[in-house]
């Protein structure tokens, strides 16, 4: 079972365990305010009373204006520095397709594309996402028409309850942009950062393979 800890091929995005590895252990283990300090150097002064690393993090207050580019549109919102990209997408912008499942980078339900790479929106601060291109399933649509990956998921019944589905679709989209002709093994590895408790993996596998063909036509 340890095979799921394999790193994805370079450029395909990050598996959940790969992502954890890339973060410092302390940032994962302690509170989000600590993550702010570790994750973005520019925020360190805002979150620390002193320059010492062992100083207790200060309570963060106050709203900061920030601009996010989501599905090609700029949105300026007021956000606390500690708010995650997931929170701002859902609560400030009303884009609810990225779903909260664990909010600690383990389930993949909140997967979005950041500059074309699949990322867990719960593990990225909204501030960090400024100046980057963020994409959600809404961005894969053409008006009311589904994009090819979405259509493949629909046709192959690559879902049951549908909660993890937007995240699965974004992981598949990232995979296919970087590898338009994936092998089954590449699909399995590329999709292994997204949990589906209903266990629709067999149909997801088929759907991603079908989507690869659809994307070319």
């Amino acid at each position: 079972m340890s095979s799921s800890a394999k790193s994805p091929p370079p450029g395909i995005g990050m598996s959940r365990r790969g992502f954890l590895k890339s973060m410092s252990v302390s940032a994962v283990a302690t509170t989000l305010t600590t993550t702010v300090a570790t994750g973005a150097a520019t925020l360190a002064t805002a979150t620390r009373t002193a320059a010492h690393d062992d100083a207790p993090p200060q309570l963060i207050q106050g709203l900061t204006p920030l601009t996010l580019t989501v599905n090609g549109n700029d949105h300026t919102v007021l956000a606390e520095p500690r708010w995650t990209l997931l929170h701002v997408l859902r609560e400030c912008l009303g884009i609810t397709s990225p779903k909260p499942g664990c909010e600690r980078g383990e389930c993949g339900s909140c997967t979005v594309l950041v500059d074309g790479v699949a990322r867990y929106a719960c593990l990225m601060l909204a501030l960090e996402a400024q100046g980057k291109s963020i994409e959600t399933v809404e961005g894969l649509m053409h008006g009311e028409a589904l994009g090819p990956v979405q259509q493949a998921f629909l046709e192959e019944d690559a879902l049951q309850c549908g909660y993890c589905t937007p995240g699965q679709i974004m992981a598949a989209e990232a995979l296919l942009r970087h590898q338009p002709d994936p092998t089954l093994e590449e699909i399995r590895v590329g999709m292994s950062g997204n949990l589906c408790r209903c266990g629709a993996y067999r149909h997801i596998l088929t759907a991603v393979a079908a989507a690869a063909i659809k994307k070319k036509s």
Partner: protein
Amino acid sequence: MADSGYFDPVSPLIQPARPGEAPHPWGHTTLIGQRIPRVDAYERVSGAAVFPSDVQLPGMLHAAILHCPYAHAIVRRLETTRAKALPGVRDIITAETPEAKISWPYGEGYAPPLFDTQLRFEGEEVAAVAAETPWQAWDAVRALEVQFDERPAAVAERLALTEKAPNVHPGGNLARPIQTYARGDLGKGLAEAAVVLSGSFRTASQLHIPLERHGCVAMWDGDGLTVWESTQGVFPVQEQLAAVLGLPLTRVRVRGGYVGGGFGSKLQTSKYAVIAAILARRTGRPVKLFLSREQTMLSMGLRPAAIMEMQLAAKGDGSLTATSLSVLASGGAYGGAGSALVDWLAKDLYRCPNVRTELTDVMLHSQPARPFRAPGYPQGAWALEQMMDRLADALGMDPVALRLQNIPTVSQARDGSPAYTTTGLKACLEEGAAAFGWQESRQRTAAQPATFTTRRGVGMAACNWLVGGGFPPATVVLKLLGDGSIILNMGASDIGGGTKTIMAMVAAEELGVTLDRIHIEHADTATTQYATASGGSKTVPTEAPAVREAAQELKRQLLGWAAEELGVKAEALRYEGASIVVINHQEKKGKSPKRIAVTNLARLRQQRVAMGVGHKRANPKNKAICPFGAQFCEVEVNTLTGEVRVVRFLACHESGRVMNRLTYDCQVHGGVVMGTGFALTEARILDAASGKLCNRNLHDYKLPTMLDVATQTVSLPLKLPDDAANSAGAKGLGEPVVVPTAPAIANAVADALRPWQVRCTATPITPAALLQALAAAKEA
């Protein structure tokens, strides 16, 4: 004809039965059984589906719960001043809050206060906060100053029954009198056996982990409460909320819509819904309260661990003569039967005249168990199906042949041993084995030299499931609008099994309309008809007959209107979907028959709506309606690392008529995935001293990923419409599919390790556990 809203049926549309009579069984079907994508797939892949956790209301506050960090503790002091002063905090409720001074019915006679000062499991609710943002709510929860007196906890089942164990409630930890079952004469059965085997088995606690966490949004409108709840059944939640809050049903509206998984953990009402309602009432604002993932793992239920001792005896030809099983389990801190149904397969799956079972339930300082997909069955199957394989080995028989030797035609565990309406057990075993290549695979794995360190093994297991035919109550309303469109109104939730799609297919099959003309209203207590929660694999066999009955009534009504308008008897008319036709002598002479378009019926043009109401009727008496199945798998075991890789799976299930082949297969595959987790990776681990949960996130609690399941998984449905079960001929599927998976894997692992006679008897079969078992066997 699709643009007309009607399809061309493969055979004439079925005509309604007489009023009060059950619909005639379907013959050939046009839509039913086909591979049809879900009617709500668009919403689910486009992001348009609004799950309860997506609901945002104007002025909405966010709430968070402070839970007990100890398995057993007394709250000495709770200070809210510091938390109240934090920015954005609007309300804090504790045991002292007047509105919160209500009792919470855990069942089994336990009804402690909503916020108790004696806390009996880690995760039990202590206080709650409402604030402008979820971040501020959690800030306030962390700022609550609580003095807990930690007390010793009862953590392990066997220890909890000893003299010195801390009591969960006064009077000892035995949750209820030991339950025994006996038929025949066990001693006689053991005496006449050629082989008697005994074994000990253990299954770990499994957590449900639906990806949408448990929670709700509560909003008051004067004296009326609306709750958007992530639930498998809106009506049970409405009933309990109304009872706890002392409101009439007409003042509590529960809206479901989409639900991001449940697996049994969202069948019941949880404290958070009442807490959200209290906070919303006190603040005059809507309140959203979703638990953290850790909190769902601490308090939203589990499949209880089972400690099992089993004895199995058979004659030389493989006929079982005696079966005994004793089970020790825990339903948690508030009674409940953690052992319920663990013994059912031992009593019922194979023919055996002499059976004795014993169920012991102990209370622990642990969260109350909740039903989990086929409650009790995977645990019991883990013991029984491994014992069957051991028995086959001891008798020198093929495991499939041994099972075929013991196929029952009646349900032996039920009073009066009623016959099954249909049983596909034999056919599942035979057809599954043939499609899997069972014989050849067995020969191939047996031929592996003992020197191989990467070894293949094949294994199989079978199952039935308790209920398959559904049961009342269920009411469905079908409305035909002026343009021929249909509204299907039912209260049932679609928890992922495809209920909405299948019910739309049933309505379409009956009425001849295309699926795009059907709109579904469901899972809302204010606007849809009563349905029980979606669980027990009963939703399709319960709702589908009600939809059929509603459609038949609608057709009868349209035929009656046409008869009135055309001046003929209704018996002289035939419903053809788009139109109603007069069956007369002219048709026989080749002239086109007289017909009237349904949408042109004068009564419809005047009334603008026609309505049919259907109900689920009682099941046939003295019959057992059960689904059956058999699963086969091949694994690869690395004897150096202890890793097990599932290479391929074949699941052959008999659940009556296949309603939608596409969603059917998805269910089967999903069951195998969940069963694979149960077998290989999933275990709730409690610290033996403190009783605290050790693996409280999805990094430490391992759910299967796409890399952990077999790429080659085949679903082979046994199509056996069960017309005696109900008018849809369908039996439940969602639960049986998870039952045989883990023992099939364990049997395959044992096959791979045959040279050392190693069998893993505890879930999960982790690399460490496997290596330990292998080392012990090599030493011996």
